[in-house]
């Protein structure tokens, strides 16, 4: 189990991370969420042992982090980039040597991963000759080749087309079922919702929402409705009954104020809008995110 206790990181005049704590069990995917500048990257860098926390404790199975930790951790950073002029095989072998994997073993794993991600033919090509998506796959391989115990993925799906997103998602789920500790940091709430069992939502370096996702949804309330409609729905924004709203061209997800009954609300708007579908739904992670961030402002 990876435990983070009362983590604080202060820079000269900002507190990037202010007293956050969480645990991640093996086999679970943990969602580290928050708007830009919330402190996600700082938290990740502290776990990676790249920067030292001002205070707080990080332990793995009860042991504090030492240099051996470097070989147990795999990291896929948000900004991607590899040595452009170098060959695919050389780059992967270099990073695996930095994780203390011997060359023979590394070569075996390279073949496995290249075929798993359907890019065998690029083994001896230079990185710059690969498409952006394929470069991202190479980067993914460098993060997982040493079979890390802890996998930290920062926006793993950005830059991939839907087919490849599916491919990467399957790999991540495989890692989870094989008992790895996975930290997923992302802005894509729908992906996080599908993959993560536990989340921590950060804003301005502080915890604003954390715990089991199903529990959070339950606590968030049942006052969520989805309507499908025809006509101009822009007036919905101004209604007092609406706590927050996510409007698309033919449907909207609405979080109602606590004491408003969904049926009541439907009656109110049905004469102004042609409604073809109405349902009470679980709040989406996106709604929770928007609501929580708005209310903490």
């Amino acid at each position, binding site marked *: 189990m990876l435990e983070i206790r009362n983590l604080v990181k202060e820079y000269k005049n900002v507190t990037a991370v202010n007293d956050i704590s969480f645990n991640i069990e093996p086999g679970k995917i943990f969602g580290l969420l928050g708007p830009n500048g919330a402190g996600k990257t700082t938290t990740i860098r502290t776990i990676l042992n*790249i920067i030292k926390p001002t205070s707080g404790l990080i332990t793995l199975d009860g042991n504090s982090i030492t240099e051996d930790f470097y*070989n147990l951790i795999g990291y896929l950073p948000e900004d991607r980039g*590899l040595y452009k002029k170098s060959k695919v095989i*050389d780059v992967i072998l270099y990073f695996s040597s930095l994780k203390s994997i011997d060359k023979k073993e590394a070569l075996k794993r390279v073949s496995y991963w290249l075929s798993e991600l359907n890019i065998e033919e690029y083994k001896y090509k230079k990185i710059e000759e690969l498409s952006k998506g394929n470069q991202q796959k190479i980067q993914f391989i460098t993060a997982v080749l040493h079979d890390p115990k802890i996998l930290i993925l920062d926006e793993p799906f950005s830059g991939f087309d839907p087919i490849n997103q599916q491919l990467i998602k399957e790999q991540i789920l495989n890692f989870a079922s094989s008992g790895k500790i996975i930290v997923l940091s992302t802005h894509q709430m729908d992906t996080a919702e599908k993959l993560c069992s536990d989340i921590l939502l950060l804003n301005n370096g502080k915890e604003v929402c954390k715990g089991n996702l199903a529990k959070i949804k339950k606590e968030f309330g049942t006052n969520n409705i989805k309507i499908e409609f025809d006509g101009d729905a822009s007036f919905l924004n101004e209604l007092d009954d609406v706590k927050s709203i996510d409007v698309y061209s033919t449907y909207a997800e609405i979080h109602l104020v606590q004491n408003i009954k969904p049926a009541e609300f439907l009656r109110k708007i049905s004469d102004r809008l042609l409604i073809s579908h109405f349902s009470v739904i679980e709040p989406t992670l996106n709604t929770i995110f928007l609501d929580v961030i708005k209310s903490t402002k």
Partner: protein
Amino acid sequence: MNKTFAIAKWEFMEKIKTKAFLISMIITPIIIITYALLPTILSDSQESGTKLVGVLDPSNIYFKGINNRVSQFKLSNNIPAYLLVNLTKDRNLDSLEKRADREVLRSKIASYLLIKNGGTDSVKIELRSKSTANFKDVKNFEQAFNETRINLQLKKKGIDTSLMRMINSNVNLKAIKINKEGKATESDFLIVFFSSFIFIILLMLMILSSGGMLIRSLLEEKSNRLIEILVSSCTPSQLLGGKILGLSALGLFQIAIWALMGIVLVGSSAVTLETFENIPLLLIYFILGYVFYTAIFVGVGSIVSTEQEAQQITSYMSMILILPIVFAITTIQEPNSNFVHILSYFPLTTPSIMLLRLNASTVPISEIIITLSILILSILIMIIISSKIFRIGILSYGKRPSLRELYRWVKEK
């Protein structure tokens, strides 16, 4: 430690494959050889043929003597260097002078020797030509005139002119450098100067080219966040150590290739090994100097985050590197002066100044030990400072840190 070697190997192998490295490996010796040979080639080409030189001497007493003396100057293929024409005719000096000037301007004669107030104590001579005369010509004609004048005077006083030969036969003073073994070698200022100078220029070029490479590769790793993957795989000190080690190996490899090229091109016999009798010691200073500057480059390089800043910093660094070259002549002329001693103890100039001193004079063993210790100590201190700056610098983007911030980084544990 294994990771340090893995990084060193990567830096070495990836840099050696680049075109920039190959080009610098071939171009640099060509530039050095060109610079070394060009002055000789240029001054040789001027002696292409016999020069027609006029003599205008209204007193009419020197022509024969000068002509005799000048005919002894030969070009390399044994043809006379000068052919003299007597321009003196029965006319007044002014019009003769004008006429002679015209002839020079029309390139009928290369130049002419004008002798005023001949036969008196206030004699004056001028060598007049279209452009400033070649210093060799000036020297030759000055010598010819003076000898002729003295000879005439001796003859007048009835003294044997063969005395003149004795007076003229200069005994040259040979400069001999005594080594610790009591072996004596002839030392020629120019040979010492150039042989040591080439060492320093090599050191400078290598530091600049590999320092530039280092900064650029750090910049690449910083801008695409590769650095984050690297420092999540090894400690910053391992990364720094690996980079220094890899680049030093690359530098040594380059020297080895150049040395081989030199032996193949020039032939080992042509290399005057006597001037490089201290080779092992010279190499130690060379390598330590190289490592010291590389350590500085790593620290400095980690704080830049744009190409412009990298260029700016490289140019500051080259200014520091040029410093020893400015003092090179003083060092060889006065290898034991106080000023040179101070420079040898100042780590930025220790390698270059010691390279010069070892070639120019015998340096006491105590000084060698002291300067080497200073250099090694500075390398260790520099690596500690650099790795502290490096640790924070590689993760900070945007505004370049101020000196005060850097000081804080170094102090931070």
